[in-house]
């Protein structure tokens, strides 16, 4: 029976289940198929810190949201159109976010009296009227899967475990997604267990057939490929893009890459990824702690490598003393903080932007460190290149602030041509750079380049340039220990001037204001780019001009930042913290910037941001309840 096909411009699906139900894998495979189909997409994995929280409980719910479209989109979407709930906990935890009239696919096998009670359902929501305003598809996913796998020589438990593949097959049919890649993926994953592989493939096909042959679903949906700029694309997460950016940067610099790191969520995947690329001259060192991670990276940098350390907020706190040493030694070093909810252990698997002030000021003494922040998963690649460029050119540690949303979120990425990557060639100092009073050639480790104020990078093994450096204040030029008051004042100001001077070497802040009539500017940094851009689109569609600008460099700010800010009647700064960039902007430029803040461990909903922006508009406000990113495009 041929089914009706309906075209949609975009769809938001959320897969939700127990931590052990394989929802991240299901979402990941659906994403991969969607990417290769050519849609624009954005994803939001949202999982608990516990590896296996108690089964069937609300804290144990793991979810994966994907927004895909036939046009360019900015966010994983505010409200899902489709919720796949593998158990009552997943339904209860997510139903509040679902768009009215949305589709719910539930696994009825898990809706037992006990499971319902466990999450506080007094009556079965599938049986009462509470889901009447949604399109409910109650399907016994587990028993259908087990039924389909009866002929396989596997245990019932193994058969049940394949239910996520059944669900993936069903959704693949419903949204017309290719399954070839998933089959290849499964073949690689279960190649050594042929029976399990066959069962998973069969479950996948059974899910597809279920959609096609039963009357549960009458309509199949189609989301056409997006008209993205020309090029070769792949799907990529922030942590992978960042890893590749480091590999590429090392190659562009002609130096080896040394990563010293201690495992910490959500940064560990960078360590995992880089450890696989030894052929690219990458050495990874899993240190005994965060301090040793940065220490080893600094030691490698002293030896002439691109030294990198990766961490998240608590780890950055531990690294601060060594970061200060790197400031004093004036050696290149890249410190990557994949921010998560804080303070302390906080929310390890959730996103936040609350380490900006720690990055900016979290060291003893005057210890300025340049800060770079990527704005999307794919942009992590270019941010890594930029961090390495600044570090090596200015002989300074650089902080790169990613976050949990960028790290695990995915988007289509236009793969750059390797030939177009920047030249980051580094030349070490190999000859004496001065003469002493008697005219003999000498090496002065703190004789600076007059343009960049960078000091020479003379690595051990270079004859005639033997010298000693350390954390004690050094005399200008010679680098000898100095407690002289005037020298210290000079050195502190010089180190600051060196970092401030980078402003002349970074692109100006660009404003997006299509009509040129805006008098409200929305300023952001880091991963809020997508939600802010989507919100600005909504506001413009509602008839209000609004300008958007996004900071890649947070220290120093681009040279034109003050001029840009002063052009607007109102500056709004959305941040996933309590106003840290706002504090810096107000303090630096004396501009009355207004923070719009949220610390829920999740990215902003663009609808919420649009409302916040509209609240700053002079005219009457339209009814936002009709506005969504997808309805406006």
């Amino acid at each position, binding site marked *: 029976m041929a089914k009706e096909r309906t075209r949609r411009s975009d769809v938001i699906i959320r897969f939700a289940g127990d931590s052990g139900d394989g929802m991240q894998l299901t979402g990941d495979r659906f994403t991969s198929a969607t990417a290769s189909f050519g849609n624009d997409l954005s994803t939001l994995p949202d999982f608990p810190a516990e590896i296996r929280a108690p089964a069937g409980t609300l804290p144990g719910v793991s979810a994966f949201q994907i927004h895909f479209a036939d046009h360019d989109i900015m966010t994983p979407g505010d409200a899902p159109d489709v919720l796949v709930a593998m158990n009552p906990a997943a339904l209860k935890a997510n139903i509040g976010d679902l768009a009215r009239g949305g589709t719910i696919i539930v696994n009825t096998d898990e809706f037992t009296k006990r499971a319902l009670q466990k999450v506080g359902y007094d009556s079965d929501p599938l049986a009462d009227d509470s889901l009447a305003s949604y399109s409910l598809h109650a399907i016994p996913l587990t028993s259908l899967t087990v039924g389909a796998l009866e002929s396989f020589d596997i245990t019932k438990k193994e058969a049940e475990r394949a239910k996520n593949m059944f669900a993936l097959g069903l959704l693949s049919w419903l949204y017309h997604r290719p399954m070839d890649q998933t089959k290849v993926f499964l073949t690689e994953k279960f190649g050594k267990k042929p029976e399990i592989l066959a069962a998973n493939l069969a479950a996948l096909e059974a899910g597809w057939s279920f959609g096609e042959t039963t009357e549960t679903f009458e309509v199949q949906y189609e989301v056409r490929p997006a008209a993205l700029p020309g090029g070769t694309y792949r799907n990529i997460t922030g942590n992978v893009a960042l890893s590749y950016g480091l590999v590429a940067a090392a*190659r562009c610099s002609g130096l080896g890459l040394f990563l010293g790191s201690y495992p910490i969520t959500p940064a560990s995947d960078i360590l995992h990824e880089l450890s696989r690329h030894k052929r690219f001259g990458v*050495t990874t060192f899993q240190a005994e702690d965060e301090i040793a991670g940065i220490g080893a990276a600094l030691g490698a940098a002293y030896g002439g490598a691109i030294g990198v350390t990766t961490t998240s907020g608590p780890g950055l706190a531990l690294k601060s003393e060594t970061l200060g040493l790197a400031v004093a030694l004036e050696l290149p070093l890249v410190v990557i903080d994949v921010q998560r909810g804080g303070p302390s252990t906080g929310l390890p698997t959730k996103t936040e932007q609350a380490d900006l002030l720690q990055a900016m000021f979290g060291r003893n003494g005057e210890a300025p460190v340049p800060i770079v922040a990527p704005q999307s998963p794919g942009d992590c690649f270019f941010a890594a290149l930029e961090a390495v460029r600044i570090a090596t050119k200015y002989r300074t540690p650089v902080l790169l602030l990613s976050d949990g949303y960028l790290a695990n979120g995915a988007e289509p990425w236009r793969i750059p041509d390797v030939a177009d990557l920047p030249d980051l060639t580094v030349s070490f100092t190999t000859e004496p750079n001065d003469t002493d009073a008697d005219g003999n050639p000498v090496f002065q480790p703190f004789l600076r380049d007059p343009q960049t104020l960078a000091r020479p990078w003379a690595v051990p093994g270079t004859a005639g340039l033997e010298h000693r450096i350390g954390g004690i204040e050094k005399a200008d030029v010679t680098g000898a220990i100095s407690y002289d008051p005037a020298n210290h004042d000079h050195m502190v100001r010089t180190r600051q001037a060196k970092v401030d001077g980078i402003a002349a070497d970074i692109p100006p802040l660009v404003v997006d204001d299509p009509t040129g009539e805006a008098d409200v500017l929305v300023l952001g940094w880091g991963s809020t780019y997508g939600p802010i851009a989507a919100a600005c689109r909504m506001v413009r569609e509602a008839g209000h001009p609004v300008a958007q600008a996004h900071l890649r460099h947070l220290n120093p700010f681009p040279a034109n930042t003050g001029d840009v800010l002063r052009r607007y009647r109102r500056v709004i700064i959305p941040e996933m913290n309590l106003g840290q960039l706002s504090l810096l902007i107000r303090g630096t430029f004396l501009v009355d910037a207004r923070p719009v803040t949220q610390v829920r461990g999740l990215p902003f909903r663009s609808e919420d941001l649009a409302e916040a922006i509209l609240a700053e508009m002079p005219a009457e406000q339209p009814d936002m309840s009709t506005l969504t990113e997808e309805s406006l495009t």
Partner: protein
Amino acid sequence: MTTDIPALELVPRTDEKQSAKDFKSDQEVRWCPGCGDYAILAAVQGFLPSLGLKRENIVFVSGIGCSSRFPYYLDTYGVHSIHGRAPAIATGLSVSRPDLSVWVITGDGDALSIGGNHLIHALRRNVNLKILLFNNRIYGLTKGQYSPTSEVGKITKSTPLGSLDYPFNPVSLALGAEATFVARTIDSDRKHLTSVLAQAAAHEGAALVEIYQNCNIFNDGAFEPLKDAGIRDEHLIRLEAGQPIRFGVDGHRGVVRGSDGQVRVVEVADVAESDLLVHQPGADDPGVAFALSRLVDPETLDKTAIGVFRDVARPSYDRQVREQLAAAGEPASSEDLTALLQGPDTWTVV
């Protein structure tokens, strides 16, 4: 004088004749007059020429403390880092630069208190570092608080009623941390110190050398029973590989391993000569070396052993890292980078 040292085969050698003077930097040495560090500095400067290495391929990395000023006074490459972190920094340097001879200078507070974690991990990994731990059993730079090696009951500024902490025995600690080379020597015994340094340098992997060092300002005479020519021979056990362990005036004391497995000190006259324990630093089992490190009477320092306790072959961490890098295959080309960026699944938008 140069010698061929397999452990240093990757470090460039020099044909030029070097002397101690070549290793003296232009910096004024600023330790207190009479400090034991002077003797160690002179011994190291005198010893380094014997390695026959290019001076620019030698690096000294230190932490914080009196001893950690050491790199400033040597005309090699050097880093004076932060408290306790020298082994971590030196690890990154050593692993990424096999052509360097990397030395760590640390003290009892730096290595065993704030930096204890880095020390034990550098030892168990067997990173190719030569770690010289100057042990004066006191905090000098902060002016006289007790250290992790101070004896129980130590009266200091921070412990007016006596310290309560039980001390570390650095040699025991290193042996417990899977170290492949562990030795102890004394600042004032230049010949012994130099001999131990030579053996440490010849060892592939991590070498921990504890150097008893006198702080004449805050803990003067801490090791006097081991230095006083009149009494030291009675107390000091000089470990020599392959030799029966005898000490005391005229060698009247000896070390045996009893039928109960215990290692103890006896009067040689009371046992058969053949019962004496023969020192074997190359023994796989570190048990006897550990037992030798425990013979000392912490009050009187009687039965203090010096020399090389343990010296066993295990591939250095550095070497194994290099082998993994080499085994990964040909260095990647720019086509390989393109392939990496593309991954298995791409699509093209026209």
